[in-house]
């Protein structure tokens, strides 16, 4: 809750308009004005001409949003520098820019078929509605950082399930009880995943509500391309769909960490030793995330929780994986690989538990003889 309130506060501060004399309008006025003046607002020639004729026609915030899009699409040009031809060919210029970036991408080396497929998607966007959606934009920007924090906290919380507390020395007693093997192991594993799931979704809902409340929940049905940051995205989805995708990806990142934590605690049988390994693993991921190297990101970091929760690259990176003759988008492949790795970690953990059980049986048989 503290983090949600803190994020909300710092994001609301960004909507305060200031000049050299002080505050011109606070966030409430700014957002209310944007809501009112963005009804039936579309990014098209009429919109540009309307803005040119009357600077305040759509309000400060909508003006800023539209100017940002103009800047990225028209290579730094301002509204005043746009010709009629520029205004009419907004989406064509967007498509051309996307095509140019795809052709020049030396890392992915797209084939003609892949580029054609991308350009089909680019062409599917026929109109960009600029309805009010500030809350969703802020949510998209901040939920990644919150997701990482949740990931760390929940992973720490589930460590004691299999991590032994050397001070208590109850493990042998527990294991020798009637249900101390299979049923206990299954209960612990299920508890870990259930607890992680409940905590994640509950926390995300709290975060969602606290963050969105001051901004309002409107705009979930607006296209994500109304945000300059993802203007060139080839995912023709709405903010609500983007939120659901981000929520799912964040959840899968958490499942990965829970599986890894379970495996590590089962093998090491020590709470703090496992915690130290998880902590150092996280730091390694954070350092990798800071040093962008395409090959490391492409073959490793894209499937790791830290980079997975930096959702932007899924929508704008256009990374592809060519597996068995198919070109799979990064978002899809990251989900698949993350799930496979989680399953592998869980399987290793279960095998170690079974091995321990078999060792105990042999020891018991040996002592009986």
């Amino acid at each position, binding site marked *: 809750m503290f983090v949600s309130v803190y994020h909300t506060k710092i994001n609301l501060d960004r909507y305060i308009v200031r000049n050299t004399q002080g505050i011109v309008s606070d966030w409430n006025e700014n957002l209310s004005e944007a809501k009112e003046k963005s009804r039936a607002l579309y990014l098209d020639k009429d919109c540009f001409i309307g803005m040119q004729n009357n600077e305040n026609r759509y309000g400060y915030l909508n003006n800023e949003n539209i100017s940002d899009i103009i800047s990225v699409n028209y290579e730094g040009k301002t509204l005043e520098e746009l010709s009629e031809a520029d205004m009419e060919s907004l989406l064509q210029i967007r498509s051309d820019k996307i095509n140019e970036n795809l052709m020049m991408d030396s890392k992915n080396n797209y084939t003609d078929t892949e580029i054609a497929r991308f350009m089909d998607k680019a062409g599917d966007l026929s109109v960009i509605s600029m309805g009010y959606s500030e809350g969703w934009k802020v949510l998209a920007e901040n939920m990644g950082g919150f997701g990482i924090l949740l990931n760390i906290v929940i992973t720490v919380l589930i460590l004691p399930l299999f991590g032994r507390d050397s001070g208590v020395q109850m493990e042998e007693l527990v294991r020798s009880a009637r249900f101390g093997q299979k049923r206990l192991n299954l209960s612990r594993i299920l508890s870990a995943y259930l607890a992680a799931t409940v905590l994640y979704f509950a926390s995300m809902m709290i975060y969602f509500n606290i963050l969105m409340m001051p901004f309002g929940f409107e705009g979930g049905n607006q296209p994500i391309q109304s945000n300059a940051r993802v203007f060139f995205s080839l995912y023709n989805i709405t903010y609500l769909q983007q939120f659901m995708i981000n929520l799912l990806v964040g959840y899968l990142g958490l499942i990965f960490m829970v599986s890894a934590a379970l495996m590590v605690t089962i093998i090491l049988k020590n709470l703090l030793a496992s915690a*130290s390994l998880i*902590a150092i693993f996280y730091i390694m991921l954070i350092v990798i995330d800071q040093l962008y*190297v395409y090959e490391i990101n492409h073959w490793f970091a894209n499937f790791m929780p830290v980079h997975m929760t930096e959702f932007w690259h899924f929508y704008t990176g256009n990374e592809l994986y060519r597996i068995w003759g198919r070109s799979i988008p990064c978002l899809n492949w990251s989900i698949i690989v993350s799930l496979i790795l989680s399953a592998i970690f869980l399987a290793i953990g279960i095998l170690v538990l079974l091995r321990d059980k078999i060792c105990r049986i042999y020891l018991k048989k040996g002592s009986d003889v």
Partner: protein
Amino acid sequence: MKRQIYMEYRKMWNKITGVAVLAMCAVVILHLFIYLNLQYRAIDSEGQIVEGLASYRALREASEEIKGTMDGTYIRELVDKYNNSFDKSYLKEHRGFLGTGGMTKFMVPNYFINYAYYGAYMSNGNDKIGLEYDFLDSEDEFYKTYKETVKEHLAEVNPYTEEQMNILGKKVDKLNIPYQTGYYQGLANLRAWFVLDYGLIFVVLAFALSGIFAKDYTGGITELTLSSKYGRKNNFNVRWIAGNMFIISIYFIFIGVQLIVNGIIATLDGWNLPAQMFWFECLHNITVGEGILILFGGGLLGAIVIGNIVMLTSIKMKNRKVAVILSAIVVFWILKSKNVYGFSKMFNPANFISDSLLTGYCFVGNMALPYFVIVIIFTVFYVALLWIGIKMSYRKYYID
């Protein structure tokens, strides 16, 4: 007492420490081998582009041509060599080469010369390696320009007064020119990765030292410890000394891994080049090797401060797990706030490894104290404060 210290020190090498140290070493080695392999390529002496780990040896071999003392003759020959080199034409065609992990033998001398022009705005890149400068016509003119640039750089990035700049100006005038140049890429990698991975030591200490004064840990404080003849006074000193010895051990393991792996990949050649080849605005007449040793010293002091903070949380919380969590939060906060602007960043132990140790000064009256001296003073102050905190808590330590 020596035996006691040894036993307490020995107790700290448990499963948790073992796992944490192994993980730290694994991460350091992986980082080095993977990044130094993927990110870098070099132009060798035959004009071929060598990629990966082999690029460092190729660069070292190619750098034999540009080794020497940067006097007037050398500079004139360098200008000639560079203008007629394959490297120059390659860089002209591949504009992003040097800024994306590319390396050429001309990097070291040419960047040094370009610093004399760009000063505080110097960076890596193809546009900062040319040699078309009038001040290269004579050795005196070049070094005069260089010294003026150093003075301007120091004045621009630091809030020194005019009087303080005069004092520093005298140090600039005493720099031992002309400088030697050569290859030092292995040392550059060592410094870069030492700084990047330094935070790992803090994490290891947070886990390994959290139980030193905990009562819920068999290696921590027990009734037996407190009720024995020397339990209250002697045992406290013994644990504190053993804790600090442990910190030094962990640090040396970290440094050792860095030295060995960087030495294997890119060698540690260039140890005796002047520090100014690497830290352009450094006013100490020391070598690159000595500069790196000073950074290592600063790192050790930072680790000792963090280790003592962990020991203080251990004795305050008396619970190992709570001490770990609190120490982890403190470590996180220290690492997160190391990049704040202003004078306050000097107080942060995570900055005890910054290049400011060699380029920064603090004035006490008319005396310019190098930052590495300030770091020693800070460390003594922090550790004394933490030691007093730990000792006061130990006097009142109760199991229940």
